[in-house]
């Protein structure tokens, strides 16, 4: 057991820090070209798709360097390293694993160069948690699949150029996991209609998508016909480790402490209230648990032991913290805490009240807590399936 980094790892951390110092001006000083320049520079560094094989344009970076990169970027509150979060997180890895040579050539460079943004078309109105039961239909006619059906809650659909789409090519199957096929579809294909949906925080990040006789050439199928479930599962296994998240959560905790120090409760400094102090300490305890859980899992990965469902542990912590921390901040600051940005007494510019309405992004978006608990109980503790 040791928590030290090697000289090379420390040098890499220094390099990342220096890069950030040189290329990340304070928010107020950033002009309209800032993001484009930033993306170009991190790409030139080889930090986009950092862990991807070199043949695909990645840097084949190791797990620890990857962690360091994420940690430092999160500490600096840097913008993302690419515009296609899902492209980098699972579409790209999915294509590298299952794609044809032609698909790799066509799609991978554009993801790394932030030229194309991908969205994920899995959920349907009647099939969310029970994803494998999806019904969106694809029928092979000659060299094209004809797609008919609906997707929903598709994050980024309004501004994405491509979608990774789960369809059903066979309905008469022994197991619902069979007969699913994964297609790569341009969002401007004829017959694709996107209707943005407003969420309770007032944003229109996700959308419903209607597919009417959309033609998708066979060469845009990812993996074999009927292998869509396997492709999806292994692509989602590429979901990012939680290390960068933990750094962000520690930063949020610090903001919360500052808020506590500058707030009064019943006319007295809130930081003197034992209930307040213990609540904040409990947040710290959970975030620290996430950190050290994450480091144990990282160590396992480095030793070449595959992770199974351990990451659900941190997802459950994250879900409850996501709800509780903002809630606590809003309640602590009373009527002022209710005010949104623009309100005369809005707290910290309304960031807490805004994010207190945004927890479903994390809590529902990546599989609900009930589903995470099922995963832990069934896969790690061996309980019988529901």
């Amino acid at each position: 057991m040791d928590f030290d980094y090697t000289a090379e790892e420390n040098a890499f951390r220094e390099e990342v820090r220096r890069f950030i110092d040189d290329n990340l001006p304070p928010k107020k000083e950033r002009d309209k070209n800032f993001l484009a320049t930033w993306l170009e520079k991190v790409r030139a560094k080889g930090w986009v798709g950092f862990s991807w094989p070199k043949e695909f344009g990645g840097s084949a970076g190791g797990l620890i360097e990857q962690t360091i990169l994420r940690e430092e970027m999160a500490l600096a509150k840097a913008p993302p390293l690419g515009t296609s979060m899902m492209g980098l997180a699972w579409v790209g890895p999915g294509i590298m694993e299952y794609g044809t040579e032609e698909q790799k050539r066509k799609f991978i460079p554009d993801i790394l160069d932030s030229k194309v943004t991908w969205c994920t078309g899995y959920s349907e109105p009647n099939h969310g948690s029970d994803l494998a039961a999806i019904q969106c239909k694809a029928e092979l006619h000659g060299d094209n699949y004809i797609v008919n059906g609906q997707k929903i809650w598709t994050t980024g659909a309004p501004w994405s150029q491509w979608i990774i789409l789960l369809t059903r090519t066979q309905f008469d199957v022994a197991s619902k996991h069979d007969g699913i096929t994964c297609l790569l579809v341009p969002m401007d294909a004829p017959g694709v209609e996107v209707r943005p949906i407003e969420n309770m925080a007032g944003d229109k990040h996700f959308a419903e998508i209607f597919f009417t006789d959309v033609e998708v050439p066979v060469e845009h199928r990812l993996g074999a016909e009927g292998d869509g479930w396997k492709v999806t599962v292994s692509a989602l296994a590429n979901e990012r480790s939680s290390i960068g998240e933990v750094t962000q959560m520690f930063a949020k905790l610090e903001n919360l402490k500052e808020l506590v120090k500058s707030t009064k409760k019943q006319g007295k400094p809130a930081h003197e209230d034992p209930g307040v102090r213990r609540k904040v300490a409990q947040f710290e305890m959970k975030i620290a648990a996430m950190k050290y859980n994450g480091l144990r899992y990282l160590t396992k990965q480095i030793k070449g032991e595959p992770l199974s469902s351990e990451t659900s542990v941190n997802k459950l912590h994250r879900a409850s913290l996501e709800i509780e921390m903002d809630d606590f901040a809003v309640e602590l600051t009373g009527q002022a805490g209710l005010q949104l940005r623009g309100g005369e007494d809005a707290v910290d510019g309304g960031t807490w009240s805004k994010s207190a309405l945004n927890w479903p992004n994390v809590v529902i978006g990546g599989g609900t807590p009930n589903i995470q608990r099922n995963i832990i109980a069934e896969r790690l503790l061996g309980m019988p399936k529901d």
Partner: protein
Amino acid sequence: MNFGFTEEQNLLRDQVERFMQDSCPITRVREISDAGGFDADLWKQIGELGWLGLLIPEAFGGLGLKWIDQVVVLEAAATGLCPLPMASQALASTAILTCANDDQKSNWLPQLARGEAVYTLGLYDDANWIDPAAITATAKASGDGYVLGGKKPFVNDAGSADYLLLAVQGPNGLALAAVAKDEVRITAQPTMDNTKPMASVDLEDVQIGADRLLPMTAGQLYHLTDCGALAVTAEMVGAGSAMLELTGEYAKQRVQFGKPIGQYQGVKHRLADMYVDLESYRSLCYFAGWCADDDPKELARAVSLAKGYASDAFNQIGIDGVGLHGAIGFTAEYDAQLFLKRSKWARPMFGDSDFHLDRVASLGGL
């Protein structure tokens, strides 16, 4: 960066777990506990295996290992609810290494390492109060040595100890008085958990020689408290995982309404929550164990994160473990109740969750 155990450490863990299964299974744990919590034969075996001298440098007859190794042993022993005073022995060795002079070390450590004598440590005299002011027993200069006064009401494993290191207010500040069992009056105190015997120690008018008072700073007192909390947390990791396993196995087998109860989410989600908490305080505990020797300035915070989490989480694991069994869990014969009782015992030891949360808040700048 490597937050995993070495092969030696994994081997040690397996050895201790196997020892518990083979030589001290839960039936034996019950017998030993009913008889006051000690078994000289087992103790001798453990001593010969070297497990009582882990923290003691090789020069004094120990293995010269670290607290993280001690964590491995205490955790593994607690999977079988080991009633023997291993944690007390470890804390006493840390106390001697921290506060004693060289002569005292050479006199005491070798026999301690071999298990030829049982040692324990008693710190605070006020229930649920971690503070130098909670030490009320005294030592006053008298003749060539000291005369002790007052009472140590809550000393772990005092009934089986040959020697006791007891915190007192001495003539020059805090100190540890080293006394032999027949020099003091020890009265066993029944508690909720008889696998962890507790006794009061009456020190009134006990005379000790000058070489038996070890000066102790407040910093050293807190260090010993932290090591105590670490030891208890390591035991909560072991006992918690055994309780989860016991309950999980039962949930797979017990059938109601035509299905194993582990198929009902009311059951499986409680088990998942137990797992989440256990994993989490396990990670925090291992980090604290590492800090004890390799990053001592982080120890207080790390221990408080771990014990603060574990105290309440293990308590809930105890309650749910019994509850998920139904009535069988409530019986004296079934073992689940023993784990619940251990969770009650562990809660106030070396600071309850409120104490540790308060410390996390203070150390974190609030």
